[in-house]
């Protein structure tokens, strides 16, 4: 009797459960459209001719779509150069990944003098407002003769306290026996790190790679300040050059914005499983 009662309860809960799932799905879909609406509007405007994007009342869909503004970006406005620069800055950021993984590993798996306050320092850097750092950082880069170089642009944000913290979180979940076994077998520390720790760290590396990509791709402040040469501007700076404030061409601005957002979106969609997995395995529970 008890069995059939609980079975009944289970079955009706299941039906209720499925209905609820559908309701939630619909609600989330509506939320998704609302959340992504500015993006949709941006896409639609990027293919409208200028007169259409300035009309009032505003229209959502273009009547005579055109790709001319995308063409203008790359033929008249140097956006091809900006795109190349942005990609290079992102790649340089990849080096930072390695450095941060090393630091995270050391903080997680070693005991050494000064570890406590050095890690506290790492966390403290997360609290420093960026406006404070601008001029002193520029002076340092200038002293190192790195102004007006892509390396100089990528350097200030190469390493971040947030990322080192996450790396350390993840690395502390790697069983120490594995490392000890390698050491007993005679492997040097660097070999252990490269051949054992890094492969195990693939999930967190995936997360960090995506996040680094996003930050590097959207970087605006440093390219603007450090590049004296327009040929070193990145996409964000190029987009802000279009803020003429005077001759308004929303279609052109939206086309440039689209060029900025779409690649990241594609990267995220492809890697989203690994991103979530990476966060999950980093012990954030």
């Amino acid at each position, binding site marked *: 009797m008890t069995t059939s009662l609980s079975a009944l309860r289970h079955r009706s809960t299941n039906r209720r459960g499925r209905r609820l799932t559908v309701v939630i799905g619909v609600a989330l879909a509506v939320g998704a459209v609302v959340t992504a609406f500015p993006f949709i509007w941006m896409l639609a405007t990027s293919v409208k001719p200028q007169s259409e994007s*300035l009309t009032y009342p505003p229209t959502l869909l273009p009547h005579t779509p055109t790709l001319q503004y995308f063409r203008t970006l790359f033929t008249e*406005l140097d956006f091809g150069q900006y795109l190349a620069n942005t990609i290079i800055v992102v790649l340089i950021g990849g080096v930072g990944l390695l450095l941060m993984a090393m630091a995270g590993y050391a903080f997680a798996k070693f005991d050494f003098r000064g570890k406590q306050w050095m890690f506290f320092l790492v966390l403290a850097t997360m609290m420093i407002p960026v406006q404070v750092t601008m001029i002193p950082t520029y*002076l340092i880069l200038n*002293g190192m003769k790195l*102004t007006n170089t892509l390396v100089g642009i990528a350097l200030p944000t190469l390493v971040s306290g947030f990322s080192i913290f996450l790396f350390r979180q993840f690395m502390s979940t790697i069983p120490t026996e594995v490392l000890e076994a390698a050491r007993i077998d005679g492997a040097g520390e660097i070999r252990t790190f490269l051949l054992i720790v890094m492969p195990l760290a693939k999930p967190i590396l995936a997360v960090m790679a995506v996040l680094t990509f996003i930050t590097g791709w959207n970087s605006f402040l440093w390219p603007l300040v450090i590049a*004296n040469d327009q040929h070193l501007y990145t996409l964000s700076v190029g987009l802000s050059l279009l803020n003429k*404030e*005077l001759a*308004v061409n929303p279609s052109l601005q939206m086309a440039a914005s689209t060029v900025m957002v779409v690649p990241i979106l594609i990267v995220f969609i492809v890697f989203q499983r690994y991103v979530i997995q990476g966060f999950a395995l980093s012990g954030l529970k």
Partner: protein
Amino acid sequence: MMRKFKKAIVPVVVAGLAFALTACSGGTSADTAKDASGPLTVWVMGDSSKNFEKLVEPFVKSSGQKVDVVAIPWDSIDQKLTTAVASGSGPDVVQIGLTKLRSFADAGALLPLDGKIAAYPNLAASKFADGVGGKATAVNGKIVSVPWVADTRVLFTRTDILAASGIDSPPTTWDQLRADARTLTQRGPNKFGYYIPQWDNALPVEMTWDFGGDIVNSKGDIDFNTTAFHNAVDLYTGLYADKSVPTNADFDQTQGFVSGTVPMLVSGPYLAAGINAAAPQLAGKWTVSTLPAADKGTSLFGGSNLGIFTTSKHQNGSLKLLDFLSKSSTQLNWYTINGELPTVKAALNDSTFTSDPLVKVYTKQLADAKVLPIIPNWDGGVGTNLLKALNSIALTHSDPKSTLETFYQSTAGISAK
């Protein structure tokens, strides 16, 4: 733990300051006798360097001197200047908005040109419009820049909308404008008569000039506490009080004019270009005219000059470039390419140039135009306080007497010499 921390800091700070010092002191002025090799670097304001590159092609070809043009976004010029000064390394030639001229000069960024321009007839002060040549844009009596492009403010009106409300020509006095604005506001809800940009710190100054006064007293100091300025404040806040002016800060003036929401406004030639681009179908339905007058019809002489950075290693080449850019033909060419008005007298009087009806109005206005006082940081300092005071009276109805008192105190005594 903390003590160890502090001990570790000291060498870092010393090293860092040493770095900074060497960086800063690297700016010794170059020997005028010989230029270094390599291209000239020119900073121009705007979204693209392509137009300027096109302009200097003849110069590059004839002199063999290569020119590297860098476009700087308008709202980033403060940052770029600061970092250039801090590091002691900047461009060779730089375009300087007139309101920023003093800041550049005070920072020691600009090479004094008094002795050097004698060798270049195109750079003589008499060649440029009176409002901006020679002493008009000198800092502390020294010439540190040469005029480049001019900007001014004129009245834009939608003649079709005015006609429909019974006004057959644009107003010629401020009183007329205020009355017309009231009429036009009555067209319906969400329609206005006139637009005051909340970021335009030159407009109240133009109004002051038009009431026969100035914001600089006889000693050369800033002084707003004058009858003329009071009249300007009354006009400015009065337009708001009449509800003839939109009160939101994000009003788009191009769209406002094109859609007819605001059929009158004061703006510069850039707006004319913008209207033509955004709404070519409006041709014939709008016009520009000189600024409304009270006692006078003085408008703004704005624009940019060109200067040479003190640390430039290409002084001779830079001077040659400045000379090229000050030729009448170059200036007229630039107007064709980029739409910015010339500052060279010969260009301004050129008959083909003034055959364009819009240009006729601009040049007429430039003949009765003044520059804003050359003080440090006009935009961020006095200009910001001016707008804050006026906007808080007009928009949030703060007490005029006390607001203006605070404003006078914050600006009195600033020297504009």
